[in-house]
């Protein structure tokens, strides 16, 4: 659905994103899109603080991922997204609610982790391979220009081996660990409360930063 002067009614969205927050986000959307109806990748360049973010590429990519994040039928990357899509992505970051039961909590958690998983798994084959993991670590450390490639590599290797030992346990010398599947990913995140960590407080959004 496209929008005119006002944002769409939150039919498809979870009820926790209040209409006030939608107003805020809509204003922000208009800022980013320069009053157009859609946002393209280039519009994200106008956010100054995003420059410093090492995983900038992955974040922007996540906004345009059609099948996984935008819940559309087709595959690949969208060229532009409208406000509804924007909200869909934002809804992944909504905070936890007190009145959620076990099942809802579990689904909530899985949703967020799935979003993360797609960011790691760049070729979307359902597995995070060693190369993809190396890629992630490289990007994380990309802010340090004079780092040796070898250190980055060994960190990723070490992490992968640890993941393998968590998920599979003891491995014989001939077994090969293909990659981290989503179930393994869930196991790795067991200790960390993703549902409380992965959220952005939409509470007070009076100050909306400007983009140039």
């Amino acid at each position, binding site marked *: 659905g496209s929008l005119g002067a006002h944002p769409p009614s939150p039919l498809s969205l979870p009820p926790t994103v209040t209409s006030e927050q939608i107003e805020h986000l809509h204003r922000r959307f208009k800022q980013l899109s320069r009053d157009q109806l859609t946002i393209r990748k280039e519009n994200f360049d106008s956010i100054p*603080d995003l420059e410093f973010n090492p995983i900038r590429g992955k974040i922007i990519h996540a906004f345009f991922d059609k099948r996984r994040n935008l819940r559309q039928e087709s595959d690949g990357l969208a060229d532009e997204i409208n406000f509804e899509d924007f909200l869909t992505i934002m809804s992944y970051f909504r905070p936890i609610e007190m009145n959620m039961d076990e099942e809802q909590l579990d689904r909530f958690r899985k949703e967020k982790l799935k979003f993360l998983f797609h960011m790691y798994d760049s070729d979307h084959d359902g597995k995070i391979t060693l190369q993809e993991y190396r890629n992630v670590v490289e990007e994380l450390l990309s802010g340090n220009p004079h780092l040796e490639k070898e250190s980055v590599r060994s960190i990723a290797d070490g992490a992968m081996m640890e993941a393998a030992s968590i998920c599979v346990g003891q491995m014989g010398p001939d077994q090969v660990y293909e990659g981290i599947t989503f179930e393994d990913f869930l196991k790795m995140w067991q200790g960390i409360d993703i549902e409380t960590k992965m959220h952005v407080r939409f509470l007070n959004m009076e100050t909306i930063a400007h983009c140039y």
Partner: protein
Amino acid sequence: IPSVSNIVPESCLLIVVGLLVGGLIKGVGQKPPMLNSDIFFLFLLPPIILDAGYFLPLRQFTENLGTILIFAVVGTLWNAFFLGGLMYAVCQLGGPGLNHISLLANLLFGSIISAVDPVAVLAVFEEIHINELLHILVFGESLLNDAVTVVLYHLFEEFANFEQVTIVDIILGFLSFFVVSLGGVFVGVIYGLIAAFTSRFTSHIRVIEPLFVFLYSYMAYLSAELFHLSGIMALIASGVVMRPYVEANISHKSHTTIKYFLKMWSSVSETLIFIFLGVSTVAGHHYWNWTFVISTLLFCLIARVLGVLVLTWFINKFRIVKLTPKDQFIIAYGGLRGAIAFSLCYLLDYKHFGMRDMFLTAIITVIFFTVFVQGMTIRPLVDLLAVKKKQDTKRSINEEIHTQFLDHLLTGIEDICGHYGHHHWKDKLNRFNKKYVKKCLIAGERSKEPQLIAFYHKMEMKQAIELVESGGIGKIPSAVSTVSIQNINPKTLPVKRILPALSKDKEEEIRKILRNNLQKTRQRLRSYNRHTLVADPYEEAWNQMLLRRQKARQLEQKMNNYLTVPAHKLDSPTMSRARIGSDPLAYEPKADSENLPVITIDLASPQSPESVDLINEEPKGCGGLPPSPEEDEEGLVMQAKEPSSPGTDDVFTPGTSDSPSNQRMMRCLSDPGPRPEPEEGEPFIPKGQ
């Protein structure tokens, strides 16, 4: 059958010991010593606070800072005034014995006793292992309420001398709170930065590195106390500020020294404090007034419970992770009072506060009650209520990667939303830190080392030490999995010597050298080791020799493994494990590949006969490394170094070769820290981690 230590917390036992000792001294006819407030505040309290502040889990602390501050400031104020006011009412109604106690005196009393005591909290909470959130909430509160206590105490003490208290005085008092707390923090930060800056230049004098940490922190405390600022907050601030930079600069041994000294001092302090409390109880002049004491106790508890309930209701509006009633109960129940209250009361001047003895009695009663009753019952209550306990999760590299990734992701989302939130500011602070502060305060290359790398090195070293310490007995610790690099990346080429030059007899030569060195160590052992001189020389030495021989055999086996199996390049897990004995923290990712760092582990140390010296011969020397497709890896060879004669202090023995990296390594080794080097059992097993 539960032993005494399971039921009774250590603090209680210590107080009982103090009571016994005091009673004994009194029984003999001597006057038992009282807990001198000067000694308490100047010598006994700082080590505990420094220990707490230096090892404060910063992440949880900052995440809950708002909650902690509200509990500390508002909670303590509420306690003080509620208690003071009610006690005044009681005094008025309490008959002739209590009538003369003024409102101010009561308020002063309230402010002294309302503060949750960090020493008591630490003593009790250490043993019950509750989850980190509750621990940091109660503990953080006990630390930060010092500012409030200091302000209120001085305020009321002064006011008690005034004829009249005007509004201006009250407002000034209110302002002084900010001065005291922020001033204390400011002083702490200054000293912390100075300490960090000093540690940047200590690479030549590793021996006194720990001294700077202690010295500057103590000076921060004294400076703050000098100006009636909050010394505790200064101490905490300095510990928190200096820690990341100091840890990046100092050697591993210094780090261990600092850790152990702090733990030792704080342990001793804590013990002494509780014992003295017991002795002082026996020694002090008491004035027991039933009404006063009982009502104090009652109102303390009521005030605490009410305060926690109301504040939690307010705080939960802003928290993501709400505090459940169970949490609230533990927080309320964990409000223990301790020696600080006692000492503050003891400081009161008899002239102005004639009822000091009564106050003292009441305070001691409350302390005893909280420490004994609450301290003893909190553990079964925690079990009963099934409060979440502390999870023994080892920090893994995966977790670190994920946490950083998530941090960046959330910062990015906040930027996209245009919302200047939590993550945004944290990110800005980190960037500022990286760009400016780290450059000033961290020596050399480490200033540019990103957190992930530093963390990784630290973990590797820890694992390596673990491995070696247990590997010396030939046992593989269960923590190390058998997943190796082959399991995840089958494409890494199997062994193929780069250069066929490493022949069988070269291997044999290496082995012979190793064996010889081990023998030499053994011989030296007999003459150097004090213990073998005193004990039956033959039997001791014989046992030792057998042990060494067994270890030598194991080492040989592992050498075999190494020499026929690929070793990895320097930065890989295997090599970093081999860097034991050298200083991994001072390792610089060096630019030129010709000078592979030297790993020198001193053979003269009697406790580690397996120490092996590895000095890089030449790049074209013996290989044994896999030809990684892209890079041209250089070999790392073993070559025995002439062990220095027994008894030489390593400080003055320069390295045999004069390559800069060798010298650096020697410098690190020149730190004559606690002697037992971790046994170099298996430096070359190409384990996965």
